[in-house]
Structures are given as C-alpha cells and as structure tokens.
C-alpha cells in the first residue's frame, strides 16, 4: 500500500499551539503541501505576522522573518525587492491585515508586488483574546463588543477580497473556506494557483481563507465549522474574484 496522504515535508514535527479544531492548522498544512509540490522549500522566505500564526517559524522548515503587527506586506516588499528570486509569502490574520495593516496591504497590492498573501479571516483577534476584528459579523459578541457588534457605531464587517479586486495591481484574488473536505480540496487548488502567480512572475496573489476560532467563538470545533457554512459564507461569499484557476 502506498501513502496517499502524509505529512508534508516542509512541516516540522512540532505539535502546534493552536486550539483544538482551529483552522490555522489546516491552512498551514495546505501551504506546506504547496511548498512541497512546487519544490520551493529552499527558495522560500516566509513573513510571519503577529496573531495566532506568529509561530510560523516553528512549524515550517523554511527561512522566516517576523514582521511587526500589520506590516508583513511592507516587510515582504523589502524582502522580495532585495531578493527577487526568492518566493515570498505573508500569512496574516484579519486583525493584522484588515485593521492595523490596512494601508500596507492595500499599497503592496496596488504596487503589484510579486507576493503571495495568505489572509486568515476568523472574524476575531484570536491571539489577544477574542476582541472585535474588522471582519466581525453584525451582532457578533466579542470581548470588545459585549452587546454584539453594532454596525451603526462599530462599523461593518469589511470584505477585503472585494477591495483587493478593485485594485489594478492585483493579479489573483480569491476567497475560500476549509470547513469541509470539499472546500479544503478546492482551497488547495486556489492556493496552488496563488503560488503559481508568483512563480510565473505574474504579480500579486491574495487568498482569503474563512477560518474558525472555536475558542473565541465559544463553541466546539464542529459548531464552528457549521458557523462558517451558515453565517460566514453568506456574508463573505466564496469566489475567485480575479484571475482564474487555469
């Protein structure tokens, strides 16, 4: 018998610090598979952001630079411009990318930097204890919206993929989810394409993952997956907004 599914080689063997059922683990694995499949482990420089995924460097067998909160796209711009042969990606949460880092992501995208951006939208600030994120859904309770997010005063959940689509500098923009095996398989295809866009020197690629945070949503892993299906996807439609799978 042959192994049809095994641990990607770009992943270290360290157990992650993620909570049970957290999608960061799945997304990490998909990224590692892409690295393996394109055979680029030795030419990658990853840019970690500040959020639950900050320990990227513990989990991937690749060179990693830790960016200040929100600034990964600027840091990655410096890395890629100085080292154009490297494959450079950022991995950012919704607090990181859509709150403090709004300016950096928009302008890196607008400059068409040859980067692959992995955006993990779990509608909360996971690492800091479940505060409101720019993507928190209307009426969602978080530790800083104890009465539910009131869109009148706290603003609307922001749809980053749609904003990315509007920028002339982006080549590939998609939103996907990993809450079911089917969506995971689809996500893999999308992520592969986002890798290719950089590998072919085509330009800037952006993939938004809808991701669960059972801990801060205060539900178990299954319910969290269901919430993605029932509540998140209707608000954040899955789509390839720009570019195609080929």
């Amino acid at each position, binding site marked *: 018998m042959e*192994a*049809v*599914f095994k641990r990607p080689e770009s992943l270290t063997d360290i*157990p992650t610090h993620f909570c*049970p059922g957290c999608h960061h683990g*799945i997304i990490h694995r998909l990224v590692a598979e892409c690295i393996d499949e394109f055979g680029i482990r030795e030419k990658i420089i990853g840019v970690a952001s500040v959020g639950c995924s900050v320990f990227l460097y513990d989990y991937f067998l690749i060179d990693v630079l830790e960016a200040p909160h929100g600034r990964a796209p600027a840091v990655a711009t410096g890395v890629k411009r100085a080292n154009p042969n490297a494959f450079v990606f950022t991995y950012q949460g919704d607090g990181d990318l859509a709150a403090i880092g709004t300016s950096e992501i928009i302008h890196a995208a607008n400059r068409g930097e040859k980067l692959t951006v992995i955006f993990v939208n779990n509608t909360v600030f996971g690492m800091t204890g479940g505060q409101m994120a720019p993507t928190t859904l209307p009426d969602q309770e978080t530790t800083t919206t104890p009465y539910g997010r009131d869109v009148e005063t706290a603003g609307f959940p922001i749809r980053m993929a749609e904003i990315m689509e509007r920028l002339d500098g982006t080549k590939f923009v998609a939103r996907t989810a990993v809450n079911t*095996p089917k969506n995971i398989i689809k996500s893999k295809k999308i992520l592969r394409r986002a890798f290719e866009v950089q590998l072919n020197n085509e330009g800037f690629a952006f993939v938004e993952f809808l991701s669960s945070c059972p801990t801060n949503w205060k539900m*178990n892993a*299954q319910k969290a997956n269901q919430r993605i299906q029932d509540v998140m996807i209707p608000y954040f439609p899955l789509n390839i907004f720009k570019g195609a799978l080929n």
Partner: protein
Amino acid sequence: MAKIEINTERCKGCGLCVTVCSQKRLFIGETINRSGYTVVQQTDDSDTCTGCAFCAQICPDVVFTVYK
C-alpha cells in the same frame, strides 16, 4: 483496501475527523495523550476504511497518514 495511521500524540480531540468520516469508523474514546487531550481512535473493522482521506484533509493537526 485502505488504511489509516493515527499519530495520537498530535491529536487534540477536536472531533472534526469523526464528523467527516463517511464510514463512521472514527470516535473519541477514553484515551488521554501526554498533552492531556482525549484522542481519536478508529474502530477495529479496518477493512471498512475507503481511504477517502476526508479525515486527513480536515484534521488541523495532521494526525493521519492514509494508505491505499
């Protein structure tokens, strides 16, 4: 014929694999691993596994290896 291997030391007992296994051959039992998690186990009927790898796809902790 297919089979899976479970690296229970990595398992966090989230139960996602249990929900997706079409053959319902995974369950959270009583075993606790070194990190304190109650881990997943498979039923003895090893021939029922289809090797669909749904469990492996959804597991956030890359616990499974699937053979076919």
